[in-house]
């Protein structure tokens, strides 16, 4: 029991999300060396149909009840806490996601268990488990040695291949004892709010010119728009640009924004914080321009230039216009 890995499944609008399979694939890789097996906690309502997709796990710890139809941190933490107590795994793998982030910290404090956030790798090293976490906006990595205590580990989306966790087949379903009393039901789900309609769907545009904090002000956004226009593409941005209202919410790339896989992603003045990289890592060609040679964007880009973006932007736009006649 004590060497098992428990994956926390996530589902959205009736479907398991990629992070579930990414975590399952990693758990399957680690479990044999750990001498344990893979379990998965599936909380929800009318989610029995999802079990057949969880063949990567030996055991599904299922809680199916109306109060769990949609995620609320309060109720999910209470039931998941019972699942962890029942399964007593060595490692609990969660996504560093809208769901997983809330659960990670709540459960760590409620159950008095250590937790590690924003992990990009987990491996065996010198007979122990080591989790690598990306901190300071991607500027540093910390390797944390796991103890024998149950440790909650939140993994950044997109770090492990989902394919490795997509195994169909028969899995043992285990109901575990849990209670949901009024003290755990202080948060209730009311409704989903759809994304606002936008003029452009940036997930379908082949060429994206992305601006970050380095664009400095809304007044400079037209310079990026001119380049995007020359390339037949669209402008998008990282979180700080959206929060400053320099671009509309529909143009946000990264966590809680869009995940794009464009043919070209031109990152202008974007540092490359993990929350942003999560949404653009899959672009086919990434070219980054940033003043800071240590910007983590250069770790994910294919081509990089260390310079003030305003030195290049007008010249690049002119060069492209010239070549296209």
């Amino acid at each position, binding site marked *: 029991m004590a060497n098992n890995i428990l994956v926390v499944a996530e589902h*959205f609008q009736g479907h398991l999300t990629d992070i579930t399979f990414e975590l399952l694939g990693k758990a399957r890789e680690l479990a044999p060396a750990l001498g344990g097996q893979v379990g998965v906690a599936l909380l929800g309502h009318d989610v029995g149909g999802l079990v057949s997709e969880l063949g990567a796990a030996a055991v599904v710890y299922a809680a199916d009840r109306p109060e769990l139809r949609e995620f*609320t*941190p*309060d109720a999910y933490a209470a039931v998941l806490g019972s699942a962890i107590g029942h399964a007593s795994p060595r490692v609990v793998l969660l996504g560093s996601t*809208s769901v997983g*982030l*809330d*659960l*990670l*910290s*709540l*459960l760590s*404090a409620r159950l008095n268990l*250590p937790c*590690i*956030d924003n992990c990009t790798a987990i491996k065996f090293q010198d007979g122990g488990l080591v989790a690598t976490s990306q*901190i*300071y*906006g*991607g*500027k*540093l*990595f*910390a390797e*944390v040695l796991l103890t024998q205590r149950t440790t909650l580990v*939140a993994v950044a989306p997109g770090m492990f291949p989902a394919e490795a966790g997509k195994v169909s087949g028969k899995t043992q379903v285990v109901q575990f004892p849990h209670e949901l009393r009024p003290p755990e039901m*202080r*948060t209730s*789900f*009311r*409704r*989903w*709010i*759809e*994304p606002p309609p936008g003029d452009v769907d940036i997930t379908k545009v082949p060429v994206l010119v992305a601006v970050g904090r380095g664009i400095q002000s809304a007044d400079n956004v037209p310079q990026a728009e001119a380049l995007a226009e020359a390339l037949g593409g669209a402008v998008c941005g990282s*979180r*700080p640009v959206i*929060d*400053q209202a320099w671009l509309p*919410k529909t143009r946000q790339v990264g966590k*809680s*924004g*869009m995940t794009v896989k464009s043919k070209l992603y031109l990152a202008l003045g974007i540092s490359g914080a993990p929350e942003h990289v999560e949404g653009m890592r899959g672009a086919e*060609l990434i070219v980054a321009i940033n003043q800071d*040679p*240590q910007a983590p964007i*250069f*770790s*994910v*880009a*294919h*081509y*990089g*230039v260390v310079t003030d973006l305003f030195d*290049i932007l007008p*010249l*690049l736009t*002119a*060069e492209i216009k010239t070549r*296209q006649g």
Partner: protein
Amino acid sequence: MNIAVLAKQVPDLVEGVEIDASGKAVDPTSIRYILSEPDDHALEEALLLKERSQARVEVFSLETGEAREALFTALAKGADRAVTVQTGQESVPDSHTTAKLFASVLHASAFDLIFTGVRAIDDLDGSLGGLLAGYLGLPYVGLVRKVETSSDGGTVVVEKEYPGGYAAELEVRLPAVLGVQAAEQPPRYVPVSRLRQVMKAAKVEEETATAEGVEPLAVGRMYKPEEGKGATMLSGGPDEVARQIADILSERHLLR
């Protein structure tokens, strides 16, 4: 309605962060501190609630970095009270210790809502909001982008962000802890003259906190990503670099 806002100091990434001689921790002397950006949004959302529903806003900060300046700025923006929490610790403690320190200050106080930024750049061991809610036995919702009070005052309705631009509307019974991702509008600006005025007229209060029983994570090593690893770096004058980029795009048939 009484709202507490927890404002954390974090390293300014523009200045860089260096690893100390042990190779296992950040060198505190390499750091210039600033207010954690999501915490600035948490303060803004609290001030918006104050304007809409006469809430009282108190801001708490551990006595690290430039905490005092950040607290005076919060007062200048409209907060009703500002408190530095004395901890006896020299550098910024980990998230679990920070949560216990704040819990010891806040548990006896009557707050309906506790706001924090949903995460900070130095959150290795989880984020403050969820940990604090766990220690205080309160409900928590993170990634919040909007908060509205209900007519009876017993709950708030919040919007929680999901991928792809979706959000969930949740109703949360008070008291509760909320991790704010972004306020409904960009954090307000305070003119330097106004800040100077407040620094003369207002005061930042002090409280003392303790945290016990936190077992720190065992960090084996810290390291920086290799500079430019993965990327082919282009060099030359701006003209030359622009031409090189255009060449790359042309080779890949990305020019029309």
